[in-house]
C-alpha cells in the first residue's frame, strides 16, 4: 500500500508538466537566485569573486615579485612593462595589488568567520540558557559595544604587536559583540516558537536544538552581517596598515601600499592612486552585494 503510494508520488513528481508537483526549491537557492536578479548585487558578487580568484592565483597571475626591490625600475610611471607603474623601491604596483587582494580577502573573510563563530557561540549560549550566564555575557558585550571599534582595534594591535595573525585575533575580539547581540536576540525569539518547544518536549538536548533548529534560522542574518563585516574588516586592515599599526611592510597589502605611497604623494601619486582605486571598487562591490543580500533574504524590507 505504502509502496504503491510512494510510487505514485514519484511518478507524479517526475511528470515534467506539473510545476506544482516539483519538490519545493531550497530556500537558500531561492534567495540566492533572487539576489542575482538584482544587477548591482550580481556585479558586486562577480567583482568580489574576481578579486578572490586573482588573490588565490596571485603567484601565477602577478607579473613581478611583489616584495623584492628592483633597482633597475625605480619610481616608474605607468607603462607597458609596469601597467600601474613602480614604487620607490622599483616594485611593480600591479603585482603588489594582486598579492594585496589575497591579503585583503583573507583578512576580511577569516576575521569575520572567526568573529561570527565567537559571536554565535556566545550569543546562542546567552540567549538559550538565560539567567546568570546571560546577564554576565551581556554586561561584557554592552561594555565593549559602548566603545568605538576602531579605538578598540588600536588598543589590541598595540598590545599584540603588528602582524597578520594578530590582526585577525584583534579584529575578532573587537567585533564579536555585534553578532553575539544579533544571535542572542534571535535565539530568544526562536526559543518561544512551537517547533523549538516541541523539540524540547521530545527531550532533544540543547546542542541539538541550537545546531539543528536555531542555527538554520540564523544563517540569513549572519550572511547579511558577513556582507557588511567583511568590507569593514578589509577597510580596517587598510586603515590600520596605513597608520603603521596593521601589517608589517613590505607585506603587499593595500593599506601598506597607501602608507608607502603617502610618503611620496607629491612625486609619485600613482603609488597611492591604484591601491585607493582597488579599495574603493572593493567597497562598492561589497556594498551592492550587501544591499542585494538584505533584500533577497528579507523580502519584507524591500
Amino acid at each position, binding site marked *: 500500500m505504502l509502496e504503491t503510494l510512494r510510487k505514485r508520488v514519484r511518478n507524479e513528481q517526475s511528470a515534467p508538466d506539473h510545476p506544482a508537483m516539483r519538490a519545493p526549491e531550497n530556500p537558500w537557492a531561492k534567495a540566492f537566485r533572487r539576489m542575482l536578479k538584482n544587477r548591482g548585487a550580481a556585479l558586486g558578487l562577480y567583482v568580489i569573486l574576481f578579486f578572490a580568484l586573482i588573490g588565490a592565483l596571485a603567484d601565477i597571475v602577478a607579473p613581478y615579485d611583489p616584495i623584492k626591490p628592483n633597482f633597475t625600475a625605480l619610481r616608474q610611471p605607468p607603462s607597458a612593462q609596469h601597467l600601474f607603474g613602480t614604487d620607490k623601491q622599483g616594485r611593480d604596483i600591479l603585482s603588489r595589488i594582486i598579492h594585496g587582494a589575497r591579503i585583503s580577502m583573507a583578512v576580511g573573510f577569516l576575521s569575520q568567520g572567526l568573529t561570527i563563530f565567537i559571536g554565535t557561540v556566545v550569543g546562542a549560549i546567552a540567549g538559550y540558557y538565560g539567567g546568570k550566564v546571560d546577564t554576565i555575557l551581556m*554586561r561584557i558585550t*554592552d561594555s565593549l559595544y*559602548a566603545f*568605538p571599534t576602531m579605538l578598540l582595534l588600536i588598543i589590541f594591535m598595540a598590545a599584540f604587536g603588528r602582524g597578520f595573525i594578530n590582526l585577525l585575533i584583534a579584529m575578532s575580539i573587537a567585533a564579536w559583540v555585534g553578532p553575539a547581540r544579533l544571535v542572542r536576540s534571535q535565539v530568544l525569539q526562536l526559543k518561544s516558537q512551537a517547533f523549538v518547544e516541541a523539540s524540547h518536549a521530545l527531550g532533544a538536548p540543547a546542542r541539538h536544538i541550537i545546531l539543528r533548529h536555531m542555527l538554520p534560522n540564523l544563517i540569513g542574518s549572519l550572511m547579511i552581517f558577513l556582507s557588511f563585516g567583511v568590507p569593514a574588516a578589509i577597510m580596517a586592515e587598510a586603515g590600520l596598515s596605513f*597608520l603603521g599599526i596593521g601589517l608589517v611592510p613590505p607585506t603587499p597589502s593595500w593599506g601598506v601600499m597607501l602608507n608607502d605611497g*603617502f610618503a611620496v604623494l607629491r612625486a609619485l601619486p600613482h603609488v597611492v592612486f591604484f591601491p*585607493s582605486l582597488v579599495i574603493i571598487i572593493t567597497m562598492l562591490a561589497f556594498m551592492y552585494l550587501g544591499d542585494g543580500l538584505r533584500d533577497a533574504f528579507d523580502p519584507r524590507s524591500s
Partner: protein
Amino acid sequence: MWQYIVRRVLQAIFTLFVLSLITFFVAKVTPGSPLGLDDPENAAKITPAMRKQLLEQYDLDKPVPVQYVLWFTKFIRGDLGLSLTYRNEHVQDILARTWPISAQLGLIAALLAISLGTLLGIVAAVYRNTFIDYASMFIAVIGVAVPSFVLAIGLILLFSLTLHWFPVTGWGTPERMVMPILVLMLGPLATTARFTRASMLEVIKQDYVRTARAKGLLERVVILRHVLKNALIPVITVAGPTLAGMLTGSVFVEQIFTIPGVANAFVGAIGGRDYPMIMAQTIIFGGLVIFMNLAVDVAYGIIDPRIRYS
C-alpha cells in the same frame, strides 16, 4: 519616564565600570612597560634605584588588582592621575587641551553631515527616480564606499599639492579646517542621506499620506506636514551615534592632518602604555557613546508618543 532614565543611567555606570576593568587588565597584561623602562636604550641609563623609585611613584610596583583599586579610588575623587608619556602632566590637563579641538572638529562635521545628509535624503525621496535622486544617491554611495583615509589622501593631493589652496597639516585657522571637516563628514552624511531617503519612501507609502493627498492638500504641505514629521523620527537613531563617533574624533583624520586632538593623544598614550591616559579616555569615549544612545532613546519617546518605556 524618569524611572526609566534613572535605571538606564545606573546601567550605564555599571557598563562603564566593566569597561574600565576590561581596559585596565588588557593594558596591564600587554607586553611592554610604560616610562620606556624596558627599552634597551634606556636600560643602561636607569639605575635599579631610579627604576624602583619610578615604579613606586606611579604605583607600578604593586599587584595589578591593587593598582586597579588605587586607580579607581583616585578616579572617584576626580583625580585621573599623572600621564606617563607627557611626564609630570596631569591627565586632566591633557584632556582639557585636546578635547576642545576634537569637539570643535566633531561638532562642525556632525552638524554639517546630519543637516546636509537629511536634506539630501529628503530631496532624493521627493524627486525619486529622477536625475536629482540619482545624483544624491551617487554622493551617498561615494560617501559609504570611499574610506576616510583614501578621501583624505585624495583631497591632500588635489587641494594641497596640486592647487595649493589648503595647508596639509595643523588646526586652528579656517583654511586648515576645511579638509579635515570634509573628510570626517562625508561618511556620516552618506549614511544619513541613505537612511533618510529610505525612511521617507516608507512613509510616503502610508495610508495617511494618501488620505492627505486625496483631501487635495498641496504636495508641499503633504511632504512638510505629513511625511517629513514622521519620516525624520528614525533618522534620530543614526544621528546620535554619528555625533558620538565624531566627537571622539576620527583617528584617521587627526593622524593624517596631524590635529592635536583627543584621538591623537589616545594613539600616543597606547603607544607609550600610558594607562592613566588610556583609562581616562576609555571612560570618556564609552560614556559618550552610552549617553548618546540614551539621549536617542529618550528623544525618540518624546517625539513619537506611540513608544512606551518599560
